């Protein structure tokens, strides 16, 4: 469903990860590990198509990917229901998907609450519920469990498991063990880009100014 070959990604015109190759099939999950600043977010943004790769290729149907960033993309003055319904209609899904997503992330009691009145963990849960209303098979998740309590992490893990069982796939950048039996853990540290002095890519200098 997703495969990368020899991918080099850059942040601010400087290569951060190089030579990343992997492939992901239906029902598989990949957990990205590595210290802060290594380029996990950059890799996910590149796969999602938000920025161009410096080298290498991404083989995936862009219509199959959905990206969830650090930020949840919620509108503070809209209610939980309205926020979710908006994304459902953008992705061409009906009200049934919204109801199912609210139930999956235990947000049913909060449907009429404006998003600005939610706690950080509740906002995160709403942000993750958005994945369910997109109907897309490959999830790209950047630190999905930040500010979630233990019970919510359990809800989220169950949601990912159901998604994998139904033939989906997920790439997660996370430091928490979600208990996904089928997940492969990939430590990105060996892919750290070499500085130009050691034969690494210098990067397009002008990129830094764009």
């Amino acid at each position, binding site marked *: 469903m997703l495969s990368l070959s020899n991918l080099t990604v850059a942040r601010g015109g400087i290569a951060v990860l190089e030579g990343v190759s992997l492939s992901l099939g239906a029902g598989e999950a990949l957990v990205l590990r590595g210290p802060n600043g290594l380029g996990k977010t950059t890799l996910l943004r590149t796969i999602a198509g938000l920025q161009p790769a410096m080298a290498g290729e991404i083989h995936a149907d862009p219509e199959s990917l959905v990206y969830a*960033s650090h930020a949840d*993309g919620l509108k503070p003055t*809209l209610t939980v229901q309205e926020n979710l319904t*908006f994304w459902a209609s953008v*992705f*061409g899904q009906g009200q049934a998907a919204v109801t199912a997503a609210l139930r999956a992330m235990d947000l049913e009691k909060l449907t009429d609450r404006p998003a600005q009145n939610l706690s950080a963990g509740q906002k995160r849960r709403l942000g993750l519920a958005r994945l369910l209303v997109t109907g897309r098979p490959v999830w790209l998740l950047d630190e999905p469990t930040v500010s979630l309590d233990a019970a919510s992490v359990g809800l989220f893990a169950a949601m990912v498991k159901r998604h994998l069982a139904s033939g989906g796939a997920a790439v997660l950048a996370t430091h928490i063990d979600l208990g996904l039996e089928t997940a492969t853990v990939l430590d990105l540290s060996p892919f750290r880009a070499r500085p130009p002095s050691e034969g690494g890519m210098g990067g397009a200098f002008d990129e830094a100014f764009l």
Partner: protein
Amino acid sequence: MLALLIRDLRISVRAGGGFGLGLGFFLIICILVPLGVGPEREVLAPAAPGILWVGALLACLLSLDRIFALDHEDGSLDLLATAPLPLEAVAFIKALVHWMTTGLPLVLISPLLGVLLHLPDAAMGWLMLSLLLGTPALSVIGAFGAALTVGLRRGGLLLSLLVLPLYMPTLIFGAEVIRRGALGMDVSTPLALLAGISLGSVALLPFAAAAALRINLR
């Protein structure tokens, strides 16, 4: 597309959404100018077309930086860029919402303010028509400027400087329509040019705005 239009309109009319900001500013200018320069018809009437158009332009300018900045801050711009909606459509809808919440109310209230400024009765229709034709250009050009400056902190200053020269033709032809209309002269030339600017901007600038957004999201 319709979902985005409905969402943004809904946000704009809720608390803190910014609906009425431009309208309030327009009202203030048109009320304060007669107080400042005096109520004489001989002074106000010739200046009225210019005052009304400058007021409308500044009112539009006031809310431009919100077009994309809010969506960029809360991360929804990233999510919209990866959604099935083309970014060109997003830019067009954002400009449309800006026009519906800023430009359209100005058009509707302008005759009332024209009276305050002693604008001749014959020019009232031309005032509304010129604003109706010209304000879409202001919103689309502004959305393009907002897309260029979306990632910048305090980008409002740069945005104003970028957009002001692009606003000049609209202002000149818009005010000219009213001035000629007030004098009972033929208005077809400035009116055609004004409509041309609006149509050209609406047709082309969403594409430019989307290209600018893609670069700024990297």
